[in-house]
């Protein structure tokens, strides 16, 4: 599979040694992207009332968590145990597994910046992309979104609300990119050469420990350029050859080891 390269490559570098797994990024993400709270009853749907409740948020396989936090363990018994938290947005792979499988071009990687797009009105909800993504970054709207009474008045304009039956995923708060470009145009600067920090995602913004860094991986003036090239940086499942645009870093070797499979000691697959 060809790796899609762009002049600008928006990417993330997440410092696992800084992440406490507090969940602020997940909440910030839901608010930014109009993800409705998980409610059990749908008062507008009488058929719903006849059957089982909608999902419980503790069923982690039915949530809409574009940004999700995984807990890592070094597997050692007390007292040598260590934990780490790994926030998992969409990897915006250079060679995405999800894009070529979509039968209706609802997802694509064709825009400058390399963000993998997901177009909700196009998606037919076949979930093939979800089966394709090894990072579980894609989520399905199992139910219609439902905001408890009064809560739908405070919605973000960044993303259109999705109906049930379509797939969605993290898009690096993509409309913030469009906003940043507009701002650059207004200020008379080059929208295709945004300074570091002009465009960042909601999770980057809100993270209290600033564990999430965001910027153009190809631009030496952006901090992520340096960070992604640090010796502690790694990407998830590099051997599969998906070329994610999300990097992680940790000084702990056991954490880095969990980023990929090493059991057979094999090399990269190409």
């Amino acid at each position, binding site marked *: 599979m060809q790796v899609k390269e762009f002049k600008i490559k928006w990417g993330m570098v997440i410092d696992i040694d800084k992440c406490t797994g507090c969940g602020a990024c997940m909440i910030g993400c839901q608010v930014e992207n109009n993800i409705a709270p998980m409610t059990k009853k749908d008062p507008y749907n009488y058929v719903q009332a006849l059957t089982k409740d909608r999902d419980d948020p503790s069923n982690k396989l039915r949530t809409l968590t574009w940004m999700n936090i995984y807990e890592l363990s070094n597997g050692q018994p007390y007292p040598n145990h260590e934990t780490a938290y790994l926030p998992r947005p969409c990897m915006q792979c250079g060679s995405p597994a999800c894009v070529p499988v979509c039968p209706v*071009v609802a997802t*694509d990687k*064709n*825009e*400058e910046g390399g*963000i993998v*797009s997901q*177009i*909700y*009105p196009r998606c037919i909800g076949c979930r093939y992309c979800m089966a394709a993504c090894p990072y579980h970054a894609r989520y399905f709207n199992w139910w219609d979104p439902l905001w408890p009474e009064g809560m739908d008045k405070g919605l973000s304009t*960044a*993303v*259109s*609300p999705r109906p049930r039956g379509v797939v969605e995923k993290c*898009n690096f708060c*993509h*409309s913030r990119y*469009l*906003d940043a*470009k*507009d*701002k*650059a*145009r*207004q*200020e008379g600067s080059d929208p295709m050469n945004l300074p570091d920090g002009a465009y960042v995602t909601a999770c980057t913004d809100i993270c209290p420990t600033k564990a999430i860094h965001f910027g153009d991986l190809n631009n030496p003036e952006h901090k992520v350029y340096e960070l992604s090239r640090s010796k502690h940086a790694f990407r998830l499942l590099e051997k599969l050859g998906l070329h994610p645009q999300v990097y992680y870093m940790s000084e702990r070797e056991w954490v880095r080891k969990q980023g990929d499979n090493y059991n057979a000691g094999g090399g990269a697959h190409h």
Partner: protein
Amino acid sequence: MEERKASKRCGGVFPFIIGFLATCILGWAVIPGLFFEKVEQPLRFSHAIHVDGQGMDCETCHYFREDGSYAGFPTNEVCAECHAVDPGEAMEAIAEAGIDPKDTAAIMAANLDVIEGALASSDDENKKAEREYVVKYLIQGKEVPWLNYQYQPDNVYFSHKAHEGLDIAELAAMKKDLSDVVDPAVFDEPGEHNCNLCHLKDIQKNDTPPAFQRNVLSGYSKMTMKMWKCERCHALKGQPNACYTCHK
């Protein structure tokens, strides 16, 4: 069997043509109109009075904000710069007159000084529209629910800023290719602004806004630009047609 077929054909041609023509006429001339219902704007807003009469610039109301976003319809805050009725004072006067503040018809009929004194229009017709705005929206603190002829759904991100520099004269060279997208008349007499490319032609001279034509099925405006139109122009201009160029 051959015979049967032949006889069937002979007997069938005429009604076939009749049916064909009937539905063709129906389908071209009548039915398309049924897809749309006409909805009037909530107020009779006259661009002509504001632009010609008061000498206002387009940018007074339709301007770019500091963040590069576009203030499409003006808010009460902008309107109130000229239509200077203090909502607090007005409400007090309404209370004094013993009128229910929600009963806009009664307020308009009451000819309250605090409102009448602030009306800028001279003739009755315009005064009526202005009064309606003040009473129904301004003093109630409610924004006017203008209908957008160029309505786009939530999944579309349109940047006025990115299209700000479009030059009608330059685009005139692509007039032919764009004939399905832009009314060719726009190129004949290029105005000062490029708004005519997508918006109602010469809206600044309009006195009574035309009705909004709402599609009864989709709810979109008749003038809602289809995706292929956007794509056509982007392709001609060498602009990206990536999904995320316009969708959110």
